[in-house]
């Protein structure tokens, strides 16, 4: 699964990341590379620091949000 290590790192570090709730964390491998106020800044830093290597940008939330879609779109590749 894509970004598996990064997602696991996010889950492990979430208690300390919650001090920055609502901001965007950038994770590469198992390391937190930084926290930014905007999605754009986190993505820019991701490409700047890690170039073509995988990285995760995630809004820091206490509970994982579930997004509701009314259209009957199909499940996705993960």
């Amino acid at each position, binding site marked *: 699964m894509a970004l598996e290590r990064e997602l696991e790192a996010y889950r492990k570090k979430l208690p300390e990341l919650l001090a920055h709730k609502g901001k965007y964390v950038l994770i590469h491998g198992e390391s937190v590379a930084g926290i930014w106020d905007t999605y*754009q800044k986190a993505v820019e830093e991701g*490409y700047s620091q890690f170039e073509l290597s995988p990285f*995760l*940008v995630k809004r820091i939330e206490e509970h994982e949000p579930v*997004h*509701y*879609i009314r259209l009957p*779109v199909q499940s996705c590749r993960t």
Partner: protein
Amino acid sequence: MPYLTLPLSDFGPITEVLIGVTNAKRSLLEKHNMPVPARVSARGLIDTGASLSLVDPKIPQQLGLSPTGKVSIKTVSTGHETHDCNEFDVSITLLNREDEIELLFPYMPVAESTFHPAEGCEVIIGRNILQDCLFIYDGRARTFSFAY
């Protein structure tokens, strides 16, 4: 505030959208002398019932994108179950070719999800975009307006 006004289609408020790589990704590709993919044209449904924006999987494939996120979604087709979807960073442009108006969102997260052809679109413009916009649905005039 630039805006576009378009006729309502039988599927609802649908506009042409161009999905492309973000400027950060573009700069990286250019730095490595790699081709920058052209923006992909698609039909986008403005959907106040969607809390995030979605694209058909063929779009990130055409753009050569790797996921930069993961989100959980729940739809009428998933019932009570949630599904994890890849999320990609893209630029989204809403387009009115007739009036030569482009509304650009340079960095937006979008999830991928397969659309049924009967839905008449390949992109959903959800509330993560609408939160910064003015959207007017004029049923009597059979038009909609979108400002950003």
